[in-house]
């Protein structure tokens, strides 16, 4: 049973465009939703995270939008750059347990 579903599997965006990756979760006990960025041969790096008490969080070019009633959240990358080309994972965890359930990942390619 996949508890966090991520889409699309891959995404190609032109430089300067907006990249949008979506995730849906099933377990309503989840209360922490991070996004990780992973480059080939590297471990995942925390990008940005949100909790259900807010609907949006912005850090630089990265924004998380959160819809609690729909059990969905998304990552928006504004002004996408070739250096953003990586695999992005959404994840979720329950309070007090700090173990992450990951989506399957989205491979983003930003064309110059």
């Amino acid at each position, binding site marked *: 049973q996949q508890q*966090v579903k*991520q889409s699309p599997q891959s995404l190609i965006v032109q430089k300067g465009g907006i990249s949008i990756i979506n995730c849906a979760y099933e377990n309503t006990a989840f209360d*922490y939703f*991070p996004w*990780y960025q992973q480059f080939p*041969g*590297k*471990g*995942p*790096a*925390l990008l940005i*995270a949100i909790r259900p008490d807010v609907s949006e969080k912005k850090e630089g070019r990265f924004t998380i939008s959160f819809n609690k009633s729909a059990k969905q959240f998304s990552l928006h990358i504004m002004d996408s750059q070739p250096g953003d080309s990586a695999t992005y*994972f959404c*994840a979720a*965890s329950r*309070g*007090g*347990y*700090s*173990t*992450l*359930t*990951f*989506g*399957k*990942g989205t491979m983003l390619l930003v064309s110059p």
Partner: protein
Amino acid sequence: DAGVTQSPTHLIKTRGQQVTLRCSPKSGHDTVSWYQQALGQGPQFIFQYYEEEERQRGNFPDRFSGHQFPNYSSELNVNALLLGDSALYLCASSPAPSTDTQYFGPGTRLTVL
């Protein structure tokens, strides 16, 4: 400030063998979690160690075991290796077991032939 470190970087084993992977957490972190990342997939939680005890465990067989030392470093042991155990093994640390933010190491790439 050193981040999470893992050794070795790469490892090749044959079916039936045993392997030990090592992890040193980020300075100030006392909780270590291990994840398995198959090719093209997201990481899957194996188990978490805190105060030298296994605190939580994911859906992995008993062939997967671990240990945490007094200095908070940790080992992941896998016995009777199967071809399907080939994956990137990631270690993550956090400053407390109830802290959501986890910092990942670069991983150990295990290939089972």
